[in-house]
């Protein structure tokens, strides 16, 4: 298929003696939403970080739009400009106001015109209902608001792919909904996303593919129906029972 965005092939990642990813292969197509599920420490976050080269892989291949990212001639900064990443702990820049957080990437990395970017940023903030908070500092916002700003910050780069690393895990249960709603909206607009999550209902609703990781091994992959109603492996079954 020609519309493969991200392809990982037998990716191995070690931290010292500890093998975190033991040969994981995965493909992500344009407009596809893939959810990674699995216990903490199963390698979900590491997998996401290998995709945007925050971690270098030890064996295997990662390619983005058919270009091999393991090639030494690849500039990681150019790769990351096309991949948005959102973190569990938001990681907004506390010394910049909301608007500055959103425009920093497009202005400083893409060297785009500030006025134009600010207009786009305001429109994005309007979409998440935070336009009137544009000049507030992140620490004055609620967790849910901060996380939505973080998502908008990566959208402002107009990425081809969005990586989301347990983006609701640090949130108060009452604030999870507003962030998931935004992600559902993004999914309906056809945003290509790779999502590590513990929200099983969300995964069931929006994912095209669900991937179950256990101790660095991709145990099972399939549509949400296959994984949630008829898992093939014992470890998948027992994991799903434990999270329910």
């Amino acid at each position, binding site marked *: 298929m020609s519309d493969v965005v991200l392809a990982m092939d037998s990716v191995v990642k070690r931290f010292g003696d500890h093998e975190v990813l033991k040969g994981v292969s995965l493909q992500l197509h344009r407009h596809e939403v893939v959810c990674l599920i699995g216990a903490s420490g199963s390698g979900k976050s590491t997998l996401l970080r290998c995709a945007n080269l925050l971690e270098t892989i030890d064996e295997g291949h990662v390619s983005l739009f058919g270009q091999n990212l393991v090639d030494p001639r690849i500039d990681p*900064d150019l*790769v990351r400009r096309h991949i948005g990443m959102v973190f569990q702990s938001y990681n907004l820049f*506390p*010394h910049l106001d909301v608007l500055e957080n959103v425009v*920093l990437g497009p202005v400083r990395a893409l060297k785009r015109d500030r006025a134009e970017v600010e207009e786009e940023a305001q429109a994005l903030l309007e979409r998440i209902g935070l336009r009137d908070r544009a000049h507030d500092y992140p*620490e004055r916002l609620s967790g849910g608001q901060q996380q939505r700003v973080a998502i908008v910050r*990566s959208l402002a780069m107009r990425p081809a792919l969005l990586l989301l690393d347990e983006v609701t895990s640090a949130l108060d249960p009452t604030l999870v909904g507003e962030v998931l709603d935004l992600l559902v909206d993004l999914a309906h607009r056809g945003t290509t996303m790779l999502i590590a999550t513990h929200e099983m209902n969300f995964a069931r609703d929006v994912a095209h593919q669900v991937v179950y990781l256990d101790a660095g091994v991709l145990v099972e992959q399939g549509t949400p129906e296959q994984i949630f109603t008829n898992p093939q492996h014992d470890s998948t079954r027992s994991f799903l029972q434990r999270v329910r």
Partner: protein
Amino acid sequence: MTIDADVDASKETPNFFAPWHRRLFVGRRGLVASTVSSALIVVAIALLLFVAPGGATFRYVFFDGHNLWLAWVGDPRLGIDSLRDGMVTNIWMFLVSEVLVLFFGLMIAWCRISQSPVLLPFRVLATAYTDVMRGIPLILTMLIIGFGLPELRLPVISSQSDAVYGVISLTLCYSAYVAEVIRAGIYSVPNGQRLAARSLGLTQTVTMRRVILPQAIRNVIPPLLNDFISLQKDTAIVSVLGAIEVVRAAQIFSAATFNESGLTLAAIFFIVLTIPMTRFTDRLLAKDRAKRLVHE
């Protein structure tokens, strides 16, 4: 029913009343304690200045109003110079040094934390530099620079004034201290900030300049201020090179008047310099916190 709760392990009712030797420090009596201790200190100073056998001489030699005034205004008819010219020298020396120290300190810290293989020689050099410059007493650096550079007989470098050599020495010494403070500040910024910035495709340099350093500097403003206050006071050491800064000027004043009140004026000068700076940065930090954080 038997009760075996861990939180109720002690059977006795606790006593919350302070023992006799703590009575003075609990509750409203804290005020009494502070008043008593302040009074004691005032008495001790009075004893030193007014009751000591040489108290009267001491007060005349160091705190004489007429001589303090004379040191401030000078008297051309008696050939006595005002200390103010010296003060101006101290002020420009520390202003120039502080700007240079901030710049070089930043550069050295940057070299020390860089991971880039290209910067390896700089990293080694920067580490050696901080080790050496923090190890040498400032007065030695001052003497080596002040008497050494002119010996080189190089154009420009060897023909500077003593004050300029003083600025060079202060910069050399304090850059090493400030570099370590800034380095600590950089490490105090959570790693998630770097990850978020790099994920936006910002280069290492832009990440440092736009994301890490602004936060790092805010975190280290109090210790940085400490070093700057030290630096301001250490401009006095330039007197060993013969530059007429305030301490040197006070000594000349003493020689002319046989009175040391010039030294007292110099001390007052340094105090007056540092206190407003401390209050200013306190205000700055408080304003920044109020802007960024929810009201606590």
